[in-house]
């Protein structure tokens, strides 16, 4: 425990501005339509009209077939004998909008893909070819191109050089600028033998010299593979998306079943109305007009969601990417929305990960200030953060900084003595350290440990604090209380998670007593104390056996089994290769609280999908009210009473409906790409809210929209 | 396995045929014939040893001296209790409107002075074509005619009408109605008794 704390501490350089709480959303913004993405997307939208490509989207394929049939019908009408009651321009307008519907849909998918690729490309840009200094077996250095590196090669990277490939530091420590990948300009520390020994190609060494063992071949670096996966995943469909595609296809089939029998039914109405009106010449309605029925079919089948479904999934991946999370599959992103339990490391995630002195407790004749002074003296040359925090606390209590005599001897901390301190030239010895170590020191010095030390030590430990005893020669002066401070804003974050229906579990190496105190303070729901790889794994399995989905964030090699077992495993990029391999997502920022964003992105993805599907289906109601009276205006004119929008004419009604149906697709592209706003509410409140917006809104909006289009069409004299 | 299932299926069918086809109807019949013998045989009305109808089945009346029942669409003739059926005409069907028109005409011809609106049940067919009842309003509408043709005092007829009126069950369920056959039988009996 203490070694980890030390290592982590060493990373915290002054420039890391760790105190500043980050805003909850760390997703980079990207303009919706940029020239780089839009133009290729438009081209792609037309290219996707090829039937064998279009076929992959069954709903839009049906629209394409309909548009094609309408085209044939127009050609026949142009060259054959027209026998319709409507003008040819109506059919042409209809067909243009049918084709546009397909193109809009393809554009949505193409745009999402282009944005995903652009995002991937910007990551790849950091993967330029660099120089590599390879260490030969005989420790000679040869200068080669990074593309020639093979796994297992060792390279030397010193300050001012770019790390040529992914690997692990096998010796040395360095501060590294990872901004090429993470966008974070503050340097981080990577050190051999620690959990943070992983380095990524393309990052830049700022100081020191390290030897890195390369773990991946050229073009096969972890990032390369990740980007490849992302690009591949863009094409892949998650199980959930497949199920929805299936449902949409079935709905398309259902509406085919609704529309096809309409032809004979409309014909039936024509027959009896001829009889009723006593007329000889044939009576025709739009109900027996094939292009109009095609238009009706297209209006009814779920084109809106059919058009945007692929885009929503890609946008989800891309949103994750923008949050600097590389998901190995779309499924992983989606799964994140289903998470019930989140496992978080205490150190570095919930707490700052290093201990600060918070108070001085005196014993016997000493005063608190005396203890402080002694402690400050003992820590004067102590460069560890703990030591520094002691000096800082002492000074912050209004004392003058301590000075040490010239010949003073600093006694550094060692694993054997577990103490540090200072020996004055006059023989005065001051020590601070673990209670038992200091007790031994006192006994060796012939002193006596007072009885009231024990309760004081225990009291501090039970609160999750670390007690350091301060002794002066053979006498115990008092105690320094070191506490690991909670990160600011964590409590709110856990409350947010709880609102989303997630349980948070803290993993800590502390004893159960300490762990429970910190857990209560941080507001987590549960904890695993004295965590070992085994009991982490066991905990995950237990939760999974209850049917829960577990997410975990980890970085160390010993996290790997638990990561592999967890349903959503987010590895920190700074973590070991084993952890990254076992995880299904990697966070390039190595930010332990990223899990929360991941869950939100997953939920947002599903919500967007559900919302647009609901919207798409709810839309149909209004279209019926526009189209049915229009279909039978030629035979049953009194059905006009059904037309509550009071549209101008049958043809304008049908055109307005089909135009609305087409235009709603580009209108919703922003929603599909950005996702429906997610509010951390309980499921019930969330459902109510979304049902109201997307369900009820979906029913009402098209009434307004279709009427508006009708007014515009008539106003522009586009229709008689 | 399959054979086992087949055996059970066959056994089940056999058992059930016996249970629901023999035991159950016999049990119900037993109760019926013991406890409700009159009703169980069709609620027949016997007048001087002759069966003149059933309490529950309406009859056709067209003589002005009788209260008329509702229209009946049974074939071949009205109130054929062997072939119950409604008119099966849509409410806007010309045939239905025709039939109503004819009934209105017939009622007015039989009682020329009466220009009150005709209660709807008199111009419509019942669902079964065997409805034994008419509404109280429909009976009252016909009352002056019957009294005039029979040469009875309206009050006497009204008294008989009230006797044959069935009220709502518990004052809520059903519509107050008059059993036409019962009323006409009572009228005939009154005539005989009066002489």
């Amino acid at each position, binding site marked *: 425990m203490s070694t980890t704390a030390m290592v982590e501490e060493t990373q915290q350089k002054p420039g890391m501005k760790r105190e500043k709480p980050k805003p909850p959303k760390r997703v980079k913004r990207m303009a919706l339509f940029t020239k780089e993405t839009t133009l290729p997307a438009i081209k792609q939208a037309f290219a996707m009209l090829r039937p064998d490509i279009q076929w992959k989207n069954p709903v839009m394929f049906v629209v394409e077939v309909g548009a094609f049939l309408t085209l044939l019908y127009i050609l026949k009408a142009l060259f054959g004998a027209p026998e319709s*009651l409507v003008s040819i321009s109506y059919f042409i307008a209809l067909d243009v909008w049918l084709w546009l519907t397909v193109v809009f849909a393809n554009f949505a998918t193409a745009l999402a893909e282009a944005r995903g690729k652009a995002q991937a490309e910007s990551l790849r840009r950091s993967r330029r070819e660099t120089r590599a200094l390879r260490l030969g077996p005989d420790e000679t250095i040869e200068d080669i191109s990074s593309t020639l590196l093979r796994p297992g090669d060792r390279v030397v990277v010193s300050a001012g050089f770019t790390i040529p490939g992914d690997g692990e530091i096998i010796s040395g420590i360095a501060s590294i600028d990872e901004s090429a990948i993470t966008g974070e300009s503050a340097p981080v520390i990577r050190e051999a033998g620690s959990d943070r020994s992983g380095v990524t190609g393309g990052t830049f060494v700022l100081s020191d010299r390290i030897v890195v063992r390369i773990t991946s071949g050229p073009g096969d670096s972890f990032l390369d593979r990740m980007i490849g996966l992302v690009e591949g995943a863009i094409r892949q469909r998650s199980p959930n998306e497949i*199920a929805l595609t299936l*449902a949409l296809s*079935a709905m398309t089939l*259902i509406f085919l079943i*609704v529309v096809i*029998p*309409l032809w*004979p*039914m409309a014909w*039936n109405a024509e027959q*009896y109305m001829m009889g009723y009106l006593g007329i000889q010449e044939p009576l*025709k309605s739009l109900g027996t007009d094939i292009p109009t029925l095609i238009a009706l079919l297209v209006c009814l089948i779920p084109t809106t969601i059919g058009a945007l479904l692929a885009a929503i999934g890609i946008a989800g991946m891309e949103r994750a990417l923008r949050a600097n999370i590389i998901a190995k599959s779309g499924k992983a992103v989606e799964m994140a*929305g289903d998470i019930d339990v989140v496992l978080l490391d205490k150190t570095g995630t919930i707490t700052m990960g290093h201990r600060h002195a918070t108070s001085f407790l005196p014993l016997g004749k000493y005063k608190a200030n005396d203890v402080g002074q002694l402690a400050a003296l003992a820590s004067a040359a102590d460069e560890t953060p703990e030591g520094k925090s002691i000096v800082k606390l002492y000074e912050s209590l209004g004392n003058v900084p301590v000075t040490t005599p010239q010949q003073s001897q600093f006694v550094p901390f060692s694993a054997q003595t577990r103490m540090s301190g200072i020996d004055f030239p006059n023989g005065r010895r001051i020590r601070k350290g673990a209670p038992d170590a200091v007790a031994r020191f006192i006994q060796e010095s012939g002193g006596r440990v007072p009885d009231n030390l024990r309760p004081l030590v225990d009291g501090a430990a039970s609160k999750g604090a670390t007690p350091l005893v301060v002794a002066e020669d053979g006498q115990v002066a008092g105690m320094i209380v070191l506490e690991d401070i909670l990160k600011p804003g964590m409590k709110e974050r856990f409350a947010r998670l709880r609102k989303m229906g997630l349980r948070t579990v803290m993993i800590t190496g502390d004893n159960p007593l300490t762990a429970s105190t910190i857990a209560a303070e941080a507001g987590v729901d549960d904890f695993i104390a004295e965590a070992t790889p085994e009991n982490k794994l066991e905990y995950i399995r237990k939760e999974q056996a209850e049917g*829960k989905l577990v997410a975990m964030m980890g970085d160390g090699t010993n996290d790997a089994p638990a990561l592999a077992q967890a349903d959503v495993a987010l590895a920190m990029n700074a973590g070991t290769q084993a952890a990254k391999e076992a995880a299904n997502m990697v966070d390039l920022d190595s930010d332990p609280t990223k899990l929360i964003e991941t869950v939100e992105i*997953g939920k947002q993805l599903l919500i967007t999908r559900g919302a647009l599907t*609901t919207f798409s289906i709810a839309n149909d109601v209004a279209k019926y009210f526009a189209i049915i009276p229009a279909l039978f205006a030629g035979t*049953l004119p*009194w*059905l006009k009473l059904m037309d509550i929008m009071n549209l101008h004419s049958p043809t304008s009604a049908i055109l307005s409906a089909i135009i609305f149906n087409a235009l709603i697709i580009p209108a919703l592209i922003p929603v599909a790409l950005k996702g429906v706003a997610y509010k951390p509410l309980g499921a*019930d409140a969330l*459902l109510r809210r979304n049902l109201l917006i997307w369900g009820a809104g979906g029913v009402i909006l098209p009434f307004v929209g279709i009427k508006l289009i009708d007014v515009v069409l008539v106003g522009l004299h586009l229709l008689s | 396995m399959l054979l*086992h*299932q087949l055996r*059970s299926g*066959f056994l*089940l*069918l056999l058992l*059930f*045929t016996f249970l*629901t*086809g023999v035991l159950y*109807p016999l049990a119900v019949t037993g*109760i*019926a014939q013991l406890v*409700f013998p009159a009703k169980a045989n069709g609620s*027949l009305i016997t007048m001087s040893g002759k069966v*003149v*109808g*059933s309490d529950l089945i309406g*009859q056709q009346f067209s003589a002005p001296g009788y209260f008329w029942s*509702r229209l009946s669409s049974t074939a071949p003739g009205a*109130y054929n209790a062997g072939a*119950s*059926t*409604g*008119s099966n005409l*849509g*409410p*806007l*069907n010309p045939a239905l409107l025709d039939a*109503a028109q004819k009934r209105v005409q017939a009622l007015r011809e039989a009682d020329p002075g009466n220009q009150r*609106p005709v209660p*709807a049940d008199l111009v419509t*067919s*019942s*669902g079964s074509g065997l*409805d034994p009842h008419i509404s109280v309003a429909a009976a009252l509408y016909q009352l002056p005619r019957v009294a005039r043709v029979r040469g009875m005092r309206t009050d006497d007829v009204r008294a008989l009408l009230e006797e044959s009126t069935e009220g709502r*069950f518990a004052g809520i369920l*059903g519509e107050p109605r008059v059993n036409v056959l019962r009323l006409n039988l009572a009228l005939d009996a009154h005539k005989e008794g009066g002489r």
Partner: protein
Amino acid sequence: MFLSTWFLPVALLATTTFIAFPLSKYLAWIMEGKFKAPRFLGWFEEKLDSGPQDWKEYTAALLIFCTALFAFGFLVLVLQPWMPMNPDGKWMLAPSTIFHSAISFMTNTNLQHYSGDQHLSNFSQIFFILTNMFLSAAVGFCALTAIIRAFRGEKLVGNFFVDMWRVVVYMFVPASFIIGVIFLQQGAPMTFDTFARVSTLESPSTQQTIVVGPVAAVEPIKMLGTNGGGFYGMNSAHPFENPTGISNFVNTMAMMLFPFMLVLMYGRMLGRLRHAVVIFSVMLLMMAGTIVWSVYFDTLKPNPGLTGDSVARTYEIPSASAPGGKRTVTVPAVGGLPVDQHLGNLEGKEMRFGTSAGATYAAVTVDVTCGAVNSEHDSLNPIAAISPMVGMWLNCIFGGKGVGMINMLLYVIIGIFVAGMMVGRTPEYLGRKIGAREVKLALIALLVHPIMILGPTGLFAATDWGLKAVSNPGPHGFSQMVYQFSSASANNGSAFDGLGVTYGLANNPAPAPEAVPWDIAAGLVMLFSRFLPIVAPIAMAAYLGAKKRAPQGLGTLRDDTATFALLLLGTILIIGALLFLPVAALGPLAEHLGPIPFGG
């Protein structure tokens, strides 16, 4: 007037709900096998038990049994002329009618292309009608039970034959017996005699043949089993089948009882009573809606045909001959008849039930897919007739025993799958994730219904089969066709009888030659619409039940809240509207908004 109109429906809904709650506990108790039968009954139960079955075996047993039932019914009808209890020598039905009838009763539809009082002997009434009514009703019940067990995660879903025995012997027979006695007391005949001849009062030379028979035995299970096939042609409108206002009340309640209880039984057996109550409330709300609709437009509104239309209307319709050309259609004003219609539309109604009884019954009988009628649906006011059609189209407003709840489950699955995603989780039902396979099966089951209604209607609308068949040409004739296939597909059994009667479908033993396509089409529709929506959901439940179950959390969609009820209601109404609004417009709406008279 207000009271006499609305008391009946309110009392019916309230009483049945009130009874259903405690009695559903008894149902669950029996189906769980906790009821220890008396020894002589238990012995049969043991003999029937062919061992626990998985869902495939259970379904196979169900299908085998139904096949046997069909064969048996077919045989009884074919042999009618040579069987006892046939004093007036009723002959065999036409072969296609036998096919149609055997399917109709085996599938719990009871659509009749014959008239019971004219064409069936008492032997057929008992061994074909009565037996089928008990058994076909129990099949749907068992299917639901199997689904419940599968949802509970049980691999073995019980034994079909034992379930059948429990349903029929421990529930249907005793309940029928009790209701039968009430009917007897109210005046229903119960005899093995066939008819009595009487001379009528006005013209003694005219003989009236009063057909009697084992009515009081058939009637209870006809209602309790939501079968609906009448002993007489005019079903529960016939004074012997339904002699009084009280019998009508009991009659209506009897058909609502099991469908009401089964929803609650579903909740009890799953340990999710609150969820079931939410579903129950949605169903109740929809049932109330259909009742209010039909009562408002049929009882509180006069027959528009008799009232007339005082305003002439003109319409411009596009002319077919030249694009852009217009033709003017004038609908003249029509005078009304001097008729007092304050009791509403009385065509096809019986006086003894009360004014709103016909419209109430019309809505209820289709909601629970019983199909018995106490008034002539064909003569309902056009717009009121939308109510029974909606009942059949949605097919889940309580619905038939078991299958109604099963249909509702399909809407639940689809609703959760689509809208449930909006809580931000993979959709789950009963804690299990709904995957592609479950959605596929649910949609297959849901697809059958519109295909089987709209397809044949379209076919018959455009051919002589339909064009010549309808007694009310025009939109009403169209409604008759839609109604026929809706009734067949919903396994309902009620009809716009004008279709069959005037066309001669029911003129057995020698119906009109065109009866054959109707018999066969309706027969096949009933068959597919019965068994696909039973088999596919059982499979769906088995797959879903086999999945790992996740606990309910704050983030999971709650299925026992008002919000869920809203979601479910919205799903049903939108899907229903999208599927059937066009036919509703072409049929009842076109008739309602059209000229008077219309058709003929």
